[in-house]
């Protein structure tokens, strides 16, 4: 299970829309516990594959090191990555699999169709070595707590506006 807030979920999907028709990519910082990976911070990364950015991505190791360092200060680890598939399904490709080396990490893929984010899926890289690694479908749990609060405060504000409107 991969847990993340609605804001983080929206942010990584929006990144894919912004870079369309190129692939976007980024790093997920968070914690791992018995329930799975929990995202605490989404870090946007640059795609170094300018030669083939529409269907390939690569994050500079320097960005990974920076993220790892930053995370450690906040008690967070690199627990996953995300990228987009412009006009391709939100399933891992053979390239994704061959180039996946972060066992125990979540690989999140968003399909971007004609510039619009569609399905977002997560795949957990199981195994502890190259010989026995495998991608497993991973459920996404999106925490909408903050969203509900926003809706509630928005509603409260609306009712205030209405009352003010009544007076005039």
């Amino acid at each position: 299970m991969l847990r993340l807030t609605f804001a983080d979920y929206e942010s990584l999907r929006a990144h894919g829309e912004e870079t369309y028709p190129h692939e976007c990519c980024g790093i997920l910082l968070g914690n791992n516990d018995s329930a799975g990976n929990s995202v605490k911070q989404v870090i946007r990364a640059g795609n170094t594959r300018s030669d083939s950015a529409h269907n390939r991505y690569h994050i500079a190791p320097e960005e990974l090191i920076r993220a790892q360092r930053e995370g450690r200060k906040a008690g967070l680890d690199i627990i996953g990555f995300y990228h987009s598939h412009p006009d391709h399904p939100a399933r891992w490709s053979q390239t994704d699999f061959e180039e996946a080396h972060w066992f125990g990490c979540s690989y999140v893929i968003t399909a971007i169709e004609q510039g619009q984010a569609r399905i977002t899926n997560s795949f957990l890289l199981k195994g502890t070595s190259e010989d026995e690694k495998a991608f497993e479908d991973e459920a996404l749990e999106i925490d909408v707590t903050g969203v509900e609060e926003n809706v509630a405060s928005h509603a409260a504000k609306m009712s205030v506006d209405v009352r003010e409107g009544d007076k005039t």
Partner: protein
Amino acid sequence: MKVNIPTPLRAYTKGKETVEVSASSVQGALDALVLTAPELKKHLFTEDDKLRSFVNVYLNDEDIRYLPQREDTATTEVDELTIIPSIAGGSAYSSKSPVPLSC
């Protein structure tokens, strides 16, 4: 000196994020690391003892592949070595795949 271990390889360092080794070169540090955590060896090196292509090793902020003396670069106690597997992929089919597979 410190060697920073990435999340996927901590299974081989008893969960430790950093391993302290005593060495005077990058190669020495890697050798010492593998001695401390023998299971790491096959994840970092190929059978002919070359660093695997997807394993990046940074001495402080420098990729050792681009250091003039590469693995033979001298190190001191205050240096840090960071091991970081690469992150790449994409919806493209790998050139290694003879037949395009559905993605």
